[in-house]
């Protein structure tokens, strides 16, 4: 305990650019530590205030015949909290193309359908999400965005976003469990390494199809 306090005090004194640790620093260090470890319940006037606020809203009406009445799924503990890793082997893509099974389930209303590289194959669903483009998904599942950077094509993609950011903003998607998929840099050099990476991520995302 004492060493922790003294270390904190040293940090504070160096922050204040003092040459040596002062009694004030020690006092500050103690206060910060106790605020972390020992909290006390909020004071009464605060409680009365929020109580007044909360109690003004009328009680919500109850919808009849609505099955088990539970909060929205993201506040429940009912979603699976594990992922299954499937044992699919890497499919060696011809000409370095990645064949990506279509992984989106459910209605996906709008997708920017521009293929990133000029050669979408029938199998390849390449939907790229540029950074910042919101993908509106109405379905409860998500889509896996696989940047279709291909090993072979080195030149054709000046505008391919360097970061095929597959980060789908969880808030856009419905309440189900969101998997944040790959955040891959589609540098061509690394596409080979990216390959196994992508595979893995796809595998991870497969479970959601079950």
């Amino acid at each position, binding site marked *: 305990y004492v060493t922790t306090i003294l270390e904190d005090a040293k940090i504070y004194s160096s922050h204040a650019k003092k040459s040596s640790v002062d009694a004030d620093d020690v006092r500050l260090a103690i206060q910060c530590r106790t605020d972390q470890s*020992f*909290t*006390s*319940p*909020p*004071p*009464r*006037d*605060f*409680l*009365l205030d*929020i*109580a*007044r606020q*909360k*109690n003004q*809203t009328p*009680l*919500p*009406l*109850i919808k*009849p*015949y609505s099955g*088990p*009445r*539970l*909060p*929205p799924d993201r*506040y*429940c*503990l*009912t979603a699976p909290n594990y992922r299954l890793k499937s044992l699919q082997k890497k499919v060696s893509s011809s000409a370095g193309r990645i064949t990506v099974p279509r992984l989106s389930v459910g209605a996906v209303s709008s997708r920017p359908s521009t293929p990133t590289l000029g050669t979408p194959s029938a199998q390849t669903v390449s939907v790229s999400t540029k950074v910042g483009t919101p993908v509106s998904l109405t379905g409860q599942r998500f889509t896996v965005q696989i940047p279709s950077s291909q090993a072979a094509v080195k030149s054709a993609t000046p505008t391919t976003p360097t970061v095929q950011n597959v980060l789908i903003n969880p808030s856009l998607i419905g309440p189900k469990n969101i998997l944040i998929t790959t955040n891959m840099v589609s540098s061509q050099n690394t596409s080979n390494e990216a390959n196994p990476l992508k595979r893995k991520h796809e595998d991870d995302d497969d479970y959601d199809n079950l």
Partner: protein
Amino acid sequence: DRQTLVAVLQFLRRSNLRESEEILRREARLLGDDLGGSVATVASSSPGVAAVAAVPPGKGSPGGAPSLSSPGSRDQVSVVFAGSTVKGRVGGGVVVEDQPDVSAVLSAYNQQGDPTLYEEYYSGLKHFIECSLDCHRAELSQLFYPLFVHMYLELVYNQHESEAKSFFERFHGDQECYYQDDLRVLSSLTKKEHMKGNETMLDFRTSKFVLRISRDSYQLLKRHLQEKQNNQIWNIVQEHLYIDIFDGMPRSKQQIDAMVGSLAGEAKREANKAKVFFGLLKEPEFDVPLDDEDEEGENEEGKPKKKKPKKDSVGSKSKKQDPNAPPQNRIPLPELKDSDKLDKVMNMKEAARRVRLGPECLPSICFYTFLNAYQGLTAVDITDDSSMIVGGFADSTVRVWSVTPKKLRSVKTAADLSLIDKESDDVLERIMDEKTASELKILYGHSGPVYGTSFSPDRNYLLSCSEDGTVRLWSLQTFTCLVGYKGHNYPVWDTQFSPYGYYFVSGGHDRVARLWATDHYQPLRIFAGHLADVTCTRFHPNSNYIATGSADRTIRLWDVLNGNCVRIFTGHKGPIHSLAFSPNGRFLATGATDGRVLLWDIGHGLMVGELKGHTDTIYALRFSRDGEILASGSMDNTVRLWDAVKAFEDLETDDFTTATGHINLPENSQDLLLGTYMTKSTPVVHLHFTRRNLLLAAGAYSSQ
């Protein structure tokens, strides 16, 4: 805001910034009458002395009695915050602000004079009270305890540690015996830093201690205090005490003793005046054939009455609305599902075979002892039809047992469910998994001891609340956790489902009780007002009111509709641990660590009975199904049965009693006690009357 302005003014005065103070005063036009009394500032020659006394408006004391503590030898700056402008228990409050000075100003204890003279003041008052007439003495003695505590806290706050200690030593023995616990806690508070962070103490300081004194006694007191030169005590009385005056005879010591004991004195008269709908909701009518079981499912609500010889309609036959019952749609309640109707039918059938209890016909008691409960049994609940028992343990597990020979089954996994025939008649049976059926299911999830458990009335859900601050909802069909309700950040001591399901209440260490609905992740209502932890929460049978018992030794009744506190019951001398509403909704029984069971009339807001007999904390209270017998279980390893019918008959509840608090409790505990049943060193944690009025009790065997 007014108060902050005044506080800033005081601060400026204290720092001798006279001109700024004048400017601010002029701008804010504070030389007004809003302060309700004369705010006299004595611009005296001695620097830094300003004595200001503000009489808080709305108090019982007559007109502005400006008491200027004459400077004399006093050099301290007395800073007074303009007392409560809010008529009520929140006296001014502590304004949580960034500027420490202002908050210090607002919450500073008024330095009423020389600390060494405190003992003189107190003993002077003591002498006066002891010499007063007998009839007034009992009432005036109520003053001792709050004055003692406030004076002590003042000394501690202003850092006169040695004076505080000697003051405590000298006078703590004079206080009533039931305050001894508080005094013990107080004796450990010797420095100002100790007071910070102790919310109960802060609340005590800022709220007004309520005393109910008759007008005659009050006149006597006032005359005496105003005569004296050093009326510091008068200042303290004005600032920290709320004297609720009533016209009538002074109360006797016995009457006073019955009602006092809480951390904030008694309840004001207005606190218990609101109308409370204590009647029961009407049961929906539907037909129930008594003999033919197969036709149960065909009966629907509202169907025209069949011509059957024996017909039993569930619900009240009269169309008139009980004037004391709340309107049916006062609060939204879930609709009655088919399964609920079946339940009600079962209930009616069982009720028909119910044993009528009475002093001649006592219930049989079946005790469920938890053996080898090294996990530390902390909470028990039994379903309404007595088919399952749940135990909450200190190792944070929740264990559910089946009491009937029927085992506990959970729903099959998804893979298996796809295989069953969905069209078959007994599909509800087929979805249950036989392979994992067992007598006991253990639910893991909490990260702290489980302090409260509650089954839902439809037996689909189970609630458990624990020290980790969450309330968890478990499904009893899959035996998994569904939701964790986070709101209290501190241990939650008790939780209960509403009698109609869907709503539940929880109360914890943060001094509030919260009303939740299962489909909202945030509470719907917050009931704030207690000065200490909320230890026990119960729904009224009509689900419109919630009773909370707390460690500040009061019970409050809250209205679900708007969150108002409609009743405050004081009288217990220890933290309350058990509450029970009578089945007709009119009465409330409460048990606490002082070993007494107190009976309250909700409509009038009065104490109507006191059952003495237990020697230790009462953790379980339950009325029988028709309200004839009250069973109480306690840590002294006994279950006692009391005659409730007799206790509630012949109540004198007229206006005089409510106004004056002149309750006359008959000393009939012995008459009302119908039986005492000892267990073998097993404290009783839970009591439950089955639908046929068999009493079930539960406890964990403790070998000492």
